[in-house]
């Protein structure tokens, strides 16, 4: 339990550092550390597969892309775009909405659900795969369609840009 509290403290600390760092590259690096603490949380919950997927996808791919874009743009302190107060305000409201949704979701879950309590082996690859492809097949497939849509959209956007450059 003490490990959990220590890691939770670190998660929140790094998350705050992400917001408060002035240098965007430092900010991304703190975000990477935040994700690393999430990985440790997953391991503490015996969800090995989730842990390693979080590690590969968030730390290994998405954050590298973040860094990539930042380095390409080469944002410095003096060229940092100042966001208007309106955007900040909207951001705060959106964050609160997410918080409310999460709290609501936790409230609805019955505490005697076998995936919430008891079965601690559900995070292992085999069990997770069985659950995903049997009981939660439809949401799983739907989310994959969502990802496919996003991918097609990204390719479309990229294609448009090259046309402009060439023509």
């Amino acid at each position, binding site marked *: 339990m003490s490990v959990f509290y220590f890691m939770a403290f670190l998660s929140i600390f790094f998350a705050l550092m992400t917001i408060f760092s002035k240098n965007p*590259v430092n900010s991304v690096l703190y975000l990477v550390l935040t994700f690393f603490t999430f990985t440790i949380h997953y391991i503490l919950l015996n969800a090995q597969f989730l842990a*390693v997927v979080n590690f590969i996808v968030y*730390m*290994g791919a998405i954050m*590298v*892309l973040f*860094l990539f874009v930042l*380095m390409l743009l080469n944002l410095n302190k003096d060229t940092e775009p100042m966001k208007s107060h309106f955007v900040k305000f909207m951001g705060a409201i959106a964050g609160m909405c997410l918080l409310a949704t999460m709290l609501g979701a936790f409230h609805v879950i019955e505490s005697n659900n076998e995936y919430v309590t008891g079965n601690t082996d559900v995070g292992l690859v085999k069990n997770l795969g069985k659950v995903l492809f049997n009981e939660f097949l439809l949401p799983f497939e739907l989310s994959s369609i969502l990802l496919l849509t996003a991918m097609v959209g990204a390719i479309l956007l990229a294609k448009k840009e090259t046309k402009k450059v060439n023509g």
Partner: protein
Amino acid sequence: MEVAFVLEKLILVVIVFVITLVVAMYSTLAERKVAGFMQDRYGPDRAGVFGLLQPLCDGGKFFFKEEIIPAGAHKPLFILGPVIAIITACISSAVIPWGQELEIGGRVISLQVASGINIGVLYIFGVIALGVYGIMLGGWASNNKFSLMGAIRAASQSISYEIAMGLSLISLLMVTGTLQLEDIVAQQSGFVNWYIWVQPLGFLIFMTCAFAECNRVPFDLPECETELVGGYHTEYSSMKLGLYMFSEYINMFVSSALMAALYFGGYNFPFMYELGLSQNWITIIGTLVFFLKIFGFIFFFMWIRWTLPRFRYDQLMNLGWKILIPLAIANIVLTGIITLIKDTYFQ
């Protein structure tokens, strides 16, 4: 957790660490010897017999060179870059099974540092994915345009080839049915069960991606000295440069080990159970055979380096996205169909 277990693992970690460093050290010598052989010259032969002391001299030189941190550099990240590179290179070998069990005085010792991990293959994959941070941070923190170009190339290259690598691994995992490396190796006992016979295309894709992930020729665009001076480590000097070069050789060692373990049977060798050897002997010979396979792959890495010219950047991206990824997906579909046919008609 008993004391003997912790002690045993600790000893194993130290041994693996030392072997990794020694192999990396002598890979630098081997590389120059192979280059010499390919180009019809001797290579280093002054320090010790056959130049065997050359790596020690090089290491000493790295330690005593002047260390320069450029004035415009982001100092903490400039130091952090090589540190991350070497740490990620060293921890990736934790799940590789170096051999079967040894039996000493009634105790069964498994020759794998982190045995019983449910996600062995994915762990290595994750650590490799992390390795690019070392290059990116170092290149960016140098505050040098050439370094930055190298860093950006490293990032896009590593992400592009990770996809193809992951996809080629998926088709292998469809055959093995497990993510645990020790199980994957144990399934390939003898010679005919090696997964290279089942997944030749997957192995080719995996190997190509391994070359790209190690930043080896023909994919060494992050350091491409003809265009970028020294690439991401242009501004590095002294042992920091040494750590970058070392991490490259360690990565090469670990990916060779991974290829040998996944596709070439790891510690398995032909007729291993027919010769009537005791378990300990099988383990020892198996480990030696495993290292022989690893050295074979390391030689292959060097052979390619001194044979093929470097890709152009757009060629690299085309190869990754338009050839390797579709091939890997086709391989997955093919593997799926064959598995299905086998399970329905030949069981």
